[in-house]
């Protein structure tokens, strides 16, 4: 078990080869039934045990184990030096993480809710995303910022937004979004081992949804590919995060009607793996993109634009986007009105099928 600190220079390579470095024989591997938030916790435990440079920080992450329990028992297992409750300041959390990362640590910071990330953006955009470029590789920023995001849990104001598009537009930041317990485990390991900053957005609406059996073998998933969850011939349905559940239902529904929908979980929304998407649309000729964020300026727009640029002749129908309305996320009583669901997605598919 490697407990030596990566040197600033060594970091990139350390992390790059991290995957291979971890023979699964290393420790006895148990499988466990986990919901998404438990998978995140398992990944954090695994990586902290195998890489002493990993440090966890944020509000209520230590003693309390996080308000969603994503960091449960980390403090007990790895101590107060490596698992830290910070004072209440998101800008501070981000700045601390940048500073630690430049010195060979791998901070995994939690922003309690995505709605509170804005005070952290100056550090993430001006520094985390630029430190390697600014110093021509002398200093790097291998940090992860975890944030629960998205609506549907009847939370107070500012606890339900989806503003991933803001982060995806920042060169130098990777933006990763799991949609299942298994992918949460593998993608988070990939994020921590990535030699550069990664924003890891957790769809809290499905934190405790469907449990999956996860083999705690420390195998990371790549951060530059979409996952094709279901092969299909007639339409390509693209989404990420919590909406993947609704999308899966929609796929089932259409399947019963003899329509095969190809379902793609983008997972890493930046950088965008358009190859997978273009390949699928070349096959189906029809595409629907669904996300919770307001439709205008959302990542769906970027995907549709690239289709309009690179797949115009493949398209048998307009690319339809299903998104939240271009308005402020309503308070809990009316959030259901705002959030796109099975009906809206299914509708869009019906339209692209009906077209031409």
């Amino acid at each position, binding site marked *: 078990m490697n407990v030596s600190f990566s040197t600033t220079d060594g970091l990139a390579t350390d992390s790059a080869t991290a995957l291979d470095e971890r023979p699964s024989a290393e420790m006895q591997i148990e499988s466990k039934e986990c919901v998404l938030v438990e998978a995140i916790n398992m990944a954090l435990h695994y990586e902290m045990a195998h890489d002493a440079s990993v440090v966890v920080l944020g509000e*209520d992450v230590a003693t309390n184990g996080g308000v969603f329990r994503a960091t449960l028992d980390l403090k007990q297992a790895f101590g107060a030096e490596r698992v830290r409750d910070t004072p209440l*300041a998101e800008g501070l959390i981000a700045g601390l993480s940048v500073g630690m990362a430049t010195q060979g640590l791998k901070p995994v910071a939690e922003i309690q809710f995505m709605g509170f990330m804005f005070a952290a953006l100056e550090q993430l955009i001006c520094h985390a995303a630029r430190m390697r470029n600014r110093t021509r590789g002398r200093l790097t920023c291998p940090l992860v910022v975890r944030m629960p995001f998205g609506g549907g849990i009847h939370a*107070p104001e500012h606890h339900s937004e989806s503003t991933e598009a803001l982060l995806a537009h920042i060169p130098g930041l990777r933006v990763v979004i799991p949609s299942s317990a298994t992918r949460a485990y593998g993608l988070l390991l990939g994020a921590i081992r990535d030699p550069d900053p990664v924003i890891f957005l957790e769809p809290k609406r499905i934190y405790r949804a469907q449990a999956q059996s996860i083999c705690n073998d420390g195998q990371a998933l790549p951060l530059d590919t979409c996952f094709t969850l279901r092969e299909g011939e007639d339409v390509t349905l693209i989404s990420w995060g919590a909406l993947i559940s609704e999308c899966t239902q929609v796929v089932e529904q259409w399947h019963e009607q003899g329509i095969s929908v190809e379902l793609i979980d983008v997972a890493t929304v930046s950088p965008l793996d358009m190859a997978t998407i273009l390949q699928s649309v070349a096959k189906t000729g029809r595409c629907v993109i669904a996300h919770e964020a307001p439709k205008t300026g959302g990542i769906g727009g970027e995907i549709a634009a690239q289709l309009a640029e690179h797949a115009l002749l493949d398209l048998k129908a307009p690319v339809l986007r299903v998104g939240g309305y*271009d308005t402020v996320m309503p308070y809990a*009583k*009316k959030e259901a009105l705002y959030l796109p669901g099975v009906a809206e997605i299914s509708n869009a598919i019906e339209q692209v099928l009906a077209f031409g």
Partner: protein
Amino acid sequence: MRGRHQFSIHFLQYLDPKGNLDLPLPEWTRDRPLLLSIYENMVLARLLDQKSVALQRTGQMGTYPSILGQEAISVCTGLAMAKNDVLVPYYRDAPAQIIRGMSPAEIFMSWGGDERGGNLNTASRDLPICVPIATQLTQAAGVATALKIKGEDSVVVTSCGDGATSKGDFMEALNLAGVWDLPIVFVINNNRWAISVPLAQQTRAATLAQKAIAAGIEGIQVDGNDPIAVYEAISKAIERARQNNTPTLIEALSYRLCDHTTADDASRYRDADELQTHWQEEPILRFQQFLHQQGLWDAEREKALQSRCQQTIDQAVEEYLAVKAEPTTAIIDYLHAFLPYTLESQRSEIQQKEAPVNT
């Protein structure tokens, strides 16, 4: 600028935890109706609080931040302010908001996930409660600046928790209040906890009041469970602000006798003994004992008050549960003064959806 500089922070308390005096009472305590009003509003606040938690537990309301044990701070804030002053509250200020004209039903509505709870009586210019920690403080400085520019003699009172003092906005607002001579009073509800993070992990400062020194303004620490000390400090600070545009920071020492919110379980991170000892210092019983000693209170009055308040709360609940759903288009109709034409199609989509069942 050069040379030796001296600073000091004082602590103010009139009533000890047993309700006994350890200082001569200030002038204003001759005003018996005021003393009684402090007590009544604290009692109402506690009942409202209990009811809110009950509504949440029974799925009739959303996440709610109780103010159990911290009633004196918000009640005295509300009572010390003039009608024309502006309150820039945080989320444990329901008592002050009610004193300033918000109905208990509106409190339920805000926490019930209905924006109309933030509408108050449309005459008010108070800000609604603010969820992103400490962001209300620079806004409060802006409100104070506006009042000054408009030549009003109103002042601003704004509040936050102990954890909020760690966020940059807090100091930015304090510093500006000093350099712009703003008519503003900052009140910290130091309930010793920021969710699971105790004050000792929030700062190394011996007091939160001394953060005023960084801004070159007045700072004072008061026993936040002693209504007389709180009212005295806030009203004097408001007076200074009104007379000479002098800002003040008031740290009100209290304790969170409840979970952080209904979504929290404090037993995970806080030991029962600490909680028990602080029950000995809570403001309502303390003040009741004081009123007794002053011959202003007895069991009968208490009984009458309790049922009066209970009635108010019960009516508010009825009112709250009877509120008609807003038209679905409300989620977009208040985005701008005039709906951009680009949103018309989205609006009609929304119009066609039926209102979700009230949850």
